[in-house]
């Protein structure tokens, strides 16, 4: 036989062995796993993503969210190396952090494609994020995470929101955010001292009146640095009068997807420890 052919076969076979063992066999073992149902009347778990949530999965996918967020809750017995107050080494950090109530198993993912398990936790795990936060929270957090967590290093996805002039009354979908987050979408805005002075000149009395009404704090001297600072912070926390931030379809879809993520909620028999 030809020499090159022998090398070819050798290389082919070594490689094929790993493909058989690591790919084909698990493929065979798990490919046709059915959804779980205790009785025919009950809704099977899991169910395929549909409509807006499916579109949202695509948004999650194309923006690479999974490069910071995993979607897998690990076992109660996984992850040693932390000590409880009594000095005993404990496991199961994922579940104890409240990221999910049980570990994930292959069946949780049978309708996922692509299956974004993730390999990095720069941010927290999202397998069960749908049961942790509301839609409003998700919208604000997606628009600018630092509006909720000052320490967050997550990117702002303000480009998925549009800033619109209010016609008539404010939309129900408008994000409930103060002007410091909405004047420059994606950033945290502060007026320069001159701008602030001009604003005070123009509508200072209204702001002060509103401050007194809403905080219930009696302030007699408006000239001290502390009260000036208080007034600025108050004003920054109030929404812009003429403008509102509305989610685009992409943002609505993404939030629908996040809310649908409940991968560690429904009890599965094989997920028991």
């Amino acid at each position, binding site marked *: 036989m030809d020499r090159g052919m022998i090398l070819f076969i050798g*290389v*082919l076979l070594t490689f094929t062995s*790993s493909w058989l063992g690591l790919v084909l066999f698990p493929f065979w073992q798990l490919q046709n796993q059915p959804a779980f149902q205790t009785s025919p009347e009950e809704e099977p778990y899991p169910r395929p993503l549909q409509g807006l949530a499916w579109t949202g999965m695509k948004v999650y996918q194309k923006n*690479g969210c999974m490069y910071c967020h995993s979607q897998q809750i690990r076992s109660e017995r996984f992850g040693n190396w932390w000590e409880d107050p009594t000095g005993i080494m404990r496991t199961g950090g994922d579940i104890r952090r409240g990221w999910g109530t049980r570990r994930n198993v292959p069946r949780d993912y049978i309708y996922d494609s692509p299956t974004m398990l993730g390999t990095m936790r720069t941010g927290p795990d999202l397998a069960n994020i749908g049961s942790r936060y509301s839609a409003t929270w998700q919208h604000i957090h997606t628009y600018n995470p630092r509006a909720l967590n000052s320490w967050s290093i997550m990117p702002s996805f303000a480009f998925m929101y549009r800033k619109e002039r209010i016609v008539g009354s404010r939309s129900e979908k408008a994000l409930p955010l103060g002007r410091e987050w909405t004047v420059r979408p994606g950033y945290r805005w502060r007026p320069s001292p001159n701008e602030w002075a001009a604003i005070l000149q123009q509508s200072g009395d209204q702001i002060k009146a509103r401050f007194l009404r809403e905080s219930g704090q009696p302030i007699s001297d408006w000239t001290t640095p502390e009260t000036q600072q208080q007034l600025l912070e108050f004003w920054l926390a109030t929404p812009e009068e003429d403008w509102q931030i509305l989610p685009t379809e992409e943002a609505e879809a993404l939030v629908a997807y996040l809310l649908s993520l409940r991968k560690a909620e429904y009890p599965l028999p094989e997920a028991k420890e």
Partner: protein
Amino acid sequence: MAVTILARDHLRLQAAQERVTIDRSCRGPVLAFSATALFWLLVGSLLALLASLKLHSPYFLTGSAIWTFGRVRMAHLQAVALGWSSLAAMAACLWLMCRLARVELIYPRMLYLACALWNVATTLAVAGILLGDGTSVEWLDAPTYAHPFFVAGVGLVTAWVVATFRRRREAHVYVTQWYILAAVFWFPWLYTVATLMIFWIPATGVIQPVVNWWFNHNFLGLWLTPIGVGTAYYIIPKILGRPIHSYYLSITGFWALALFYSWAGIHHLIGGPIPAWLATASTVGSMMMFIPVIAVAINHHMTMIGHFHRLKYSPALRFTVFGAIAYTAVSFQGSIESLKDFSEVAHFTHYTVGHAHLGAYGFVAMIFFGLYYYMIPRLTGREWYSSKLIRLHFWCSAVGITLYFTALSIGGWWQGRMLNNPNVPFANIIMYIQPYLALRSVAGTMMTIGHIAFAILFIINLAGWGRQRSGGPTLFAQPPQLTPSELPKADSLMNAPVTQLQP
């Protein structure tokens, strides 16, 4: 006496001519692969820097979909892994295969086509991802429309490497050729099978990440590693003028790598929702990797023993030896990292990112830098323009990757310890890791400066603005007995018609 000297000189001249002819035949295609690889290295470096900065300064360039972290990170990986590393690896395959088989390159046009296809694929991948077609499948983020171009490009290279191998004039198959042949078979299969099972006929649920990690690990293990190790097996002995320490070990190492590396990938899913035996099988594969790694380590380092002073004189050797040392280090680290106790901490952290860069940059990129410094002057017939720039490149890259690795290893380890402890609030982990992420940006800036120096050197060399090579050891040694008038000038050899050079 005089007769023997002349006979020896004649042999020497003949050997030199043969080598120059071969190098000249490779010039066009190999330079095309090398130059475009370097272009993608620069693109990849800038994307990397951007992603790194955004991770500790989230307000930097915020508000644009194209430059959002997730997309930039995916684009960076495609630019450096498929653009830079793979194109450089293919350049290495082509040139080394010609030299080791002692035959000229044939059908260069086919290779220009391969290079063009691969570059079209990489452009589609990087631009597609930034514009919102990324797939979020690690290492396979390229949009599906890039796949056929990648497969066609590497397919042509494989066909060409096999054709060259079959035309070989050198009877002995050197260990580098084993590695190259194996790699050019493995990679097209690997890529085709992985993309088929994930995108074209998607497998169910968790099978996808299993196939994904089998691919990812083998991308490094069965594509870049064999070519990198093979290159070092040629460059180190060739520069030192010293055969490798144990040729027997090198062949053993090759087969051990082929057997065990392909099994190692699934430990990246340790603790995840996959059958436990898969991760265990991979841990075994990872531990067995000690065998080929030790074989290669003994060979590379024992060949160097007693010759470390050469690092001072040879730019190519510096990079290559750095790469060889990084290979030993990263492989030992990888085997240990696959152990369950260790992985429970390091998984899901920046520790793994540090490890990946020690492999892909400290080992693979440094070996290819070494290859460039050795190969390019022999292809163009021109000397490198500036030793200072070469030194700048080396120190920026070496210090840069060391700082990168150290920062992320320390930061990542403690990040993992804190993640495992539910009593540590998530905010604390984010605040803890940020100085390390900032250090990574410093390291990345250094590496990018090195790459710019490298690109300047490369462009000057290619454009011919620098000095011409005139004999000297880098092209071929001058037989000292011949008088200058009898000596063929290096550039005259490079530009002479082929028939004139045939002995």
